[in-house]
């Protein structure tokens, strides 16, 4: 049953990716990106990664789409048609890279394998000890906020820095321009007086 859902979700992902490549209308592309994220969230849910699915649905399908749309209203809605070049070389590069990646998956441990390296480092300790040490049922929260609190502080700082960067590029200049406009109007009023 889960395999069937997996196959359906993955084929829709591939279809949407091809549709995004072929579309010229950027509004539609933004909508398809949102769908792509929503389907990924579904995949994460099937893998029992509810926290990741939650984030993907809220950020990928929600906020990023809004930001894409807001950007579209400020720029162009259609992308310019690209010049037709020989597609053979890019295609070859993509095929070789894809083949190398598929070859690499051969060495990966199976999904959910308890002997996978990621499960043999500290995961056991988190799962067994966090009940006594932290006393919180959701181990993900224990890891994120306590065991890996330092990393989460870094992530929060990254988000804050992103906000500061956007304000420095867009917000601050807008404020300055508005102030300049007001000043111009005042000057004009003075001139009239």
């Amino acid at each position, binding site marked *: 049953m889960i395999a069937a859902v997996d196959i359906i979700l993955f084929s829709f992902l591939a279809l949407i990716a091809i549709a995004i490549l072929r579309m010229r209308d950027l509004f539609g592309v933004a909508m398809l990106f949102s769908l792509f994220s929503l389907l990924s969230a579904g995949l994460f849910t099937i893998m029992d990664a*509810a*926290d990741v*699915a*939650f*984030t993907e649905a*809220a*950020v990928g399908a*929600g*906020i990023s789409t*809004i*930001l894409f749309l*807001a*950007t579209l*209203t*400020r720029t162009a809605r259609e992308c310019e048609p690209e010049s037709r070049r020989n597609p053979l070389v890019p295609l070859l590069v993509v095929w070789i890279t894809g083949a190398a990646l598929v070859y690499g998956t051969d060495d990966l441990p199976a999904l959910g394998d308890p002997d996978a390296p990621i499960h043999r480092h500290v995961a056991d300790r988190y799962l067994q000890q966090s009940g*006594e*040490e*932290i*006393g*919180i*049922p*959701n181990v*993900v*929260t*224990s890891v*994120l*906020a*306590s065991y890996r*609190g*330092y990393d*989460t*502080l870094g*992530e*929060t*700082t990254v*988000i*804050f820095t*992103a*906000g500061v960067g*956007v*304000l420095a*590029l*867009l*917000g601050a200049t*807008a404020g300055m*321009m*508005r102030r300049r406009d007001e000043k111009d109007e005042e000057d004009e009023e003075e001139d009239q007086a």
Partner: protein
Amino acid sequence: MKHHVVLRVIAKMVIPVIMLFALYVQFHGDYSPGGGFQAGVIFAAAIILYSLVLGLDAAQRAVSPRVLRVLAASGVLLYGGVGLTTIALGGNFLDYNVLSHDPVHGQHLGILLVEMGVGMTVASTMLLIYFAFAGRPEERAP
């Protein structure tokens, strides 16, 4: 989109629920999926919906960008402040055990505060970025 009556009515019904859900995700993150980051994004999404339906000006009157700037910074400061407090109390940086007499209580308190910091910063930064992008372009034109 002010003239779409259906959209406006539905949005007004849905927005409080979204905000309540954001608070649930924020404070129930210890027991169920979610936490400060997800809650912040959901809260921001509620206000973005408000802004989409009732206009950017109405949203900025409800949530002033100046307040958001302060909130974004104070979230990070709250997080870092918890870390500095634990140092002052004799522990390591972000070692919540020393926050209370009982180490487990200390962990609960530390996680609660830290997640609140994350939620504040994420919600206000998302809104600030949205406001910066959605600002009317005709004003920006030279």
